[in-house]
């Protein structure tokens, strides 16, 4: 029994760590390509926060470098939302609004976790992600309530990402076990708050919430979209080709 409890905790750390790692890698793709220099720096800052969080979480789950660079697609446990392509700037903002709002609500509750590492981790990360959430909300409002073209792009970005939201609130056996042991918050407890918060941002942005679509699930079990393999190919190429490289 004790063994199983430890495994659930490690699995939970992997899920959170992979979310941060993959979203950080995705945002990092903007570096040097953002619409303006200031936005380039903004997105790179978000990247660094997330990669730092991934380093802590994967380090608590095992050897962070080994986990990040030497696992295959099916072993990654991130949610499908974070691996979605950047698309245009609006789609990136839509993805970040939907993820960081969820992540912030989770971290606020994780500061009360029964697990000491997660408590301390959440206390640090919750400030970083509060900024992510605010920045994504601000941009959502400016794009949604901007020009016809920016509103159109923002609506399309949200429409792309919307079907990946239900996965954030899915509770499987592993998550239920960590909830029961007080390690993890139950995401269903803040689903309504989440929906209300997103609806308020969209109202400010003069955008309609997309119609609910057939949810796409499976990331937590390693069933990923084709996009993740491409992310890993870029991210893992160097350490896999030159395993002993140092720099």
């Amino acid at each position, binding site marked *: 029994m004790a063994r199983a409890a430890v495994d659930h905790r490690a699995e939970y750390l992997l899920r959170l760590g992979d979310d941060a790692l993959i979203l950080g890698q995705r945002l990092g793709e903007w570096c040097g390509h953002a*619409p*303006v*220099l*200031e*936005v380039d*720096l*903004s997105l790179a*800052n978000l990247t660094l926060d997330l990669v730092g969080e991934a380093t802590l979480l994967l380090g608590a789950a095992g050897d962070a470098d080994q986990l990040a660079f030497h696992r295959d697609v099916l072993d990654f446990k991130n949610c499908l939302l974070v691996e979605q392509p950047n698309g245009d700037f609006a789609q990136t903002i839509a993805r970040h609004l939907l993820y960081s709002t969820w992540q912030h609500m989770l971290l606020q509750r994780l500061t009360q976790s029964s697990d000491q590492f997660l408590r301390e981790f959440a206390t640090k990360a919750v400030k970083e992600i509060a900024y992510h959430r605010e*920045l994504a909300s*601000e941009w959502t409002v*400016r794009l949604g309530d901007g020009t016809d073209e920016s509103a159109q792009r923002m609506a399309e970005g949200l429409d792309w990402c919307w079907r990946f939201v239900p996965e954030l609130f899915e509770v499987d056996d592993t998550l239920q076990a960590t909830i029961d042991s007080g390690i993890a918050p139950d995401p269903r407890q803040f689903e309504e708050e989440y929906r209300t918060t997103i609806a308020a941002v969209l109202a400010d942005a003069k955008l309609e919430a997309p119609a609910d679509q057939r949810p796409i699930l499976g990331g937590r079990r390693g069933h990923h979209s084709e996009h993740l393999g491409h992310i890993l190919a870029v991210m893992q190429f160097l350490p896999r080709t030159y395993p002993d490289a140092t720099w």
Partner: protein
Amino acid sequence: MSSDWPLWEVFVRSKGGLAHRHVGSVHAPDAELALRHARDTYTRRMEGVSLWVVPSVEIVASDPDDAGELFEPAESKIYRHPTFYDIPDEVKHI
């Protein structure tokens, strides 16, 4: 795109008790995002505890052509420098 965005001057207070100091400028569509851009551009390495942004067009600047009459008269007034006093070592930030 950035050519459409106004320019904002950025001032950073490096720690409590010190004055805000001009550090540079950012482009941003409005004041709120100017603050965020200033934060992301100029305080990434713990440079500050407080930020000001001011629309660059609101800055009233002296004319370089007037530098002679504005600043040269001060050059010959050495007695205006507080160099005739001993400042105790314990006094900082003067």
